[in-house]
């Protein structure tokens, strides 16, 4: 019996760090039936025996190499699970704005200047580039495809950029362009999941969840992790992209609508007054607290926190997401149109959220999958529109953050989920009506700006056809390790015990903080 009690107390003290409350333990025991007890007791004996067998296997990598304790203690106050926690060491960035171009924009039309590819435009692709590769649509021997738009060098740093981003070009000396990104996924959903959760399968916490779990969020009247979507579609990876996986669900991303009410049903229905609403919430919380005292399930706390936040959000969320509060000149600089759901509007909202102390702001813009299968999905038409939709807003966002000094501690990340092939897509082995490129996990371009990254840098190198990385490869997990480093974390120590593993954003393969891109 005493074993069971101490086990329950240990469980409880995990939930309520620093507290041991014997009376709670007894209350929990009372809630246990004889059958529960017997079942857990037999399981416990078996587990103890198995534990002795498995002990030599249970050593973690850190323990085996003798590197000391492997986890930093993230214990949020259960009454305010989103409260601010200090990072492991002094951070370079305090918040993140991640601009995900869903569908994977072509690096060969934007940042990767490859004159050799242009020279061989229309030639048969050498067999060596095709051997052992899997493609989504390429068949037979495709033709090489040169850049569709002219490139030039820009800024003091002299970085190459195409003519598709004339506004962004003004900020080229502030960008840290990584040309050697690499992934191992060549379909959109798993590749997006890999970029956003560190794992191509569903069920893992997203980047934003990890960050808010580790740091909490400053503004207690807004969610710490907000997601905004444009381009007419949810990204292929679905809502799992801002899911919380095995972390408590209070850390999951909150998708806000970019026009109308930002979050539906925040305001009480007509004829329900605010004090009435408050009384309902108070009663609900009391019941939930009792429930938590009985069972100690952290998800109960999540529920309490969410009721409370939705109440506080009534004012602040509406204000924060309302771009009508901005002067006309600002809206014009972003290219906003009131009342529509656009990337431009979302960029302006992102700035307003960053100013208000939201920790992680995630924008998705859909429609970059330029296969050439239709006008919308082509490099000569749809791609041009996509570029136009994002170019001015991103430039305005960077300018706004810069003029307010926020770029110093805000990390901006722009990128897709993989790259596009150096070959023209030939779906069905035929010359397609529109020009496009297939998926290429072997190389893609991503840029960062702001908090702690080296401005005006072009990092990494691909081969002369822009097909594979030849120098300084940056895996997705390296990017994650670098982002966490900028936010003040050792990616190995920000972990969470689940399924017998110390689960990390960067996974089990060794990840590297790309020190070369740090300012």
């Amino acid at each position, binding site marked *: 019996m005493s074993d069971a009690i101490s086990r329950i107390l240990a469980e409880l003290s995990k939930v309520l760090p620093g507290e041991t409350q014997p009376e709670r333990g007894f209350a929990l025991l009372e809630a246990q039936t004889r059958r529960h007890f017997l079942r857990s007791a037999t399981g416990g004996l078996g587990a103890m025996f198995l534990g002795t067998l498995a002990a030599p296997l249970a050593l973690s990598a850190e323990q085996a*190499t003798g590197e000391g304790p492997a986890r930093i203690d993230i214990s949020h106050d259960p009454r305010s699970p989103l409260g601010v926690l200090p990072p492991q060491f002094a951070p370079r960035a305090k918040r993140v704005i991640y601009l995900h171009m869903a569908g994977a924009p072509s690096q060969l039309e934007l940042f990767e200047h490859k004159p050799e590819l242009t020279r061989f435009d229309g030639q048969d692709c050498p067999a060596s580039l095709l051997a052992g590769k899997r493609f989504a649509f390429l068949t037979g021997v495709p033709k090489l495809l040169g850049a569709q738009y002219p490139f030039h060098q820009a800024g003091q740093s002299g970085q190459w950029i195409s003519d598709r981003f004339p506004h962004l070009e003004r900020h080229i000396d502030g960008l840290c362009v990584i040309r050697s990104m690499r992934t191992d996924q060549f379909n959109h959903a798993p590749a997006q999941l890999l970029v956003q959760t560190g794992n191509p399968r569903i069920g893992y916490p997203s980047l934003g969840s990890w960050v808010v779990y580790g740091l909490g969020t400053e503004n207690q009247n807004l969610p710490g992790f907000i997601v905004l979507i444009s381009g007419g579609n949810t990204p292929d990876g679905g809502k799992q992209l801002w899911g919380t996986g095995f972390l408590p669900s209070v850390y999951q991303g909150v998708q806000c609508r970019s026009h109308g009410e930002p979050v539906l049903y925040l305001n009480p229905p007509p004829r329900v007054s605010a004090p009435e609403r408050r009384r309902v919430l108070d009663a609900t919380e009391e019941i939930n607290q009792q429930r938590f005292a009985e069972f100690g399930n952290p998800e109960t706390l999540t529920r309490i926190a969410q009721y409370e936040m939705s109440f506080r959000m009534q004012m602040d969320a509406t204000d924060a997401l309302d771009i009508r509060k901005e002067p006309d000149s600002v809206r014009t600089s972003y290219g906003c149109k009131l009342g529509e759901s656009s990337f431009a509007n979302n960029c302006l909202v992102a700035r307003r959220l960053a*100013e*208000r102390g939201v920790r992680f702001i995630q924008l998705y813009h859909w429609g970059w999958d330029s296969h050439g299968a239709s006008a919308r999905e082509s490099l000569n038409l749809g791609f041009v529109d996509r570029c136009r939709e994002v170019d001015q807003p991103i430039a305005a966002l960077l300018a706004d953050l810069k*003029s*307010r000094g926020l770029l110093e*501690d805000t990390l901006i990340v722009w990128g897709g989920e993989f790259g596009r092939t150096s070959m023209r897509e030939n779906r069905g082995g035929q010359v397609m009506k529109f020009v496009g490129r297939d998926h290429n996990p072997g190389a893609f371009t991503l840029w960062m700006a702001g908090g702690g990254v080296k401005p005006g840098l072009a990092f990494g190198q691909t081969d002369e056809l822009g097909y594979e990385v030849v120098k300084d490869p940056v895996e997705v997990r390296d990017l994650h390790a670098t982002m966490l480093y900028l936010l003040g974390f050792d990616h190995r120590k920000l972990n969470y015990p689940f399924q017998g593993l110390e689960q990390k954003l960067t996974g089990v393969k060794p990840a*590297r903080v790309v020190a070369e891109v740090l300012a």
Partner: protein
Amino acid sequence: MNTSLHSPLQRYRFAVVPVLLLLLVTALLLLAPPDGIERGPLLQFVGRFHPLAVHFPIALLFIVPLFEILGRKRNAAFLLPVNFLLMLAAGGAILSAVLGWCLARGGGYSGALIRQHMWGGLLVATASLVCWWLRSRGEAAAPSRPYLALLLLAIVLISFTGYKGGQVAHGETHLTEFLPPPLERWLGPPTPLTSISAVGEGPSTFYGARIQPLFEGHCVTCHGQSKHKAGLRLDSYAGLMRGGKHGPVIKPGDSKSSELFRRITLPQSDDDFMPKDNKKLLSASEVKLIERWIAEGASRTLSAETLAALPGNAPSQDAAAVTFPDIDPAAVVRERTEVAPILSRVQLRLPNIVEYESRTSADLMVNASWRGSKFGDDELAELAALSPSIVTADFSGTAITDRSARVIAAMRKLRLLRLAHTAITDSTIEGLGTLDQLESLSVFDTRVTESSLSVLTRLTNLRRVYAGGSKIPHDVAVPVQVREKLVF
């Protein structure tokens, strides 16, 4: 007549079987000695029972003198089973010898240790058989001198053989490894059974200094001078390069196709994995060392410095690698002694406004901007006691006024200060002359004018002044070193 003629044979007819078996084992040991080559699984399966079987004759042989003494001193009843015990001991010893041969011949054992253990075992079996014969002939009450001498010899032999067996199974130093130091001094320094470092393998070469010690530490118990399983000896460079019964184990320049490297990098559950049978494992860095050495040609004479200097081994990323500072909780607590009680008091009043900059620091970060108009001069005044520890402060969009100037000016360690969208004026800025750590200042969208710039020129660490939307004109006439810090 007949009976008298046949009586000795009849009397010892049970002994014929063990004697024949003993002769058979002797013949096997002579004709088919263990040669380091692994053979049929059946032979090995049977052989694996050898360690199990040997304990019976050991125990039985040791109990015989005990019973002989007890029987004489205490109670004659102890003498009754001695004959039977000796018979069992002799039988067990012979069986063990047969099983031992199976194990050694089948399991790929060879070397001096095995030979000593093997012949020792055979002698034990012979001695115990003869003991039994002598004992069953003589009078139980008065044992003959030869019998007693032989029994003593059998005891000595079985101790020796058992010790050698232990060395075969658990390593040559299995008894002396954890010898208490006084005892060790008394016994004298251990004489190493294996001496490896020959010429050219001294510590000046990479092989001698780094590789050979790994083999000595992890491999030579089974692949050494006294025991060379699979015909492989790793106690010398020559043995290593000669390889084993399956051929060479090292392919210079190609670690991936080297059998030795393949086996040490297999999953631990694999049958081929080395080191086998719960022997001490190689660490990841040791494996890496072996991989590098093979990749660079597995040379015997290559010096340690040359290998380190070879291209591809230079730690290319080291220069750019980041280090993660260790957290020393005690030191952090010490540093925070003064600030901690004040901070927890302030945090109760102003939750999520002020927090430590990091887990390793006693410095504080303040962000009040999210409170908007709910944060004013009165709230800011509550931070006064913490002022000396605050390194970044964001009051953008709050209701603070020039009344807070004194509290802000007391934040001597401030590196970053944001006052955007507030009602502060030049009088606050003019008080900032003492903040010599200040690097970044935002007066975006305030009524601050260029007259406050003069005080900022004194701040040598200042890098950026965000002046957009303030009353500072874009073309303000100031010295160029101030001008280039202004961001609009």
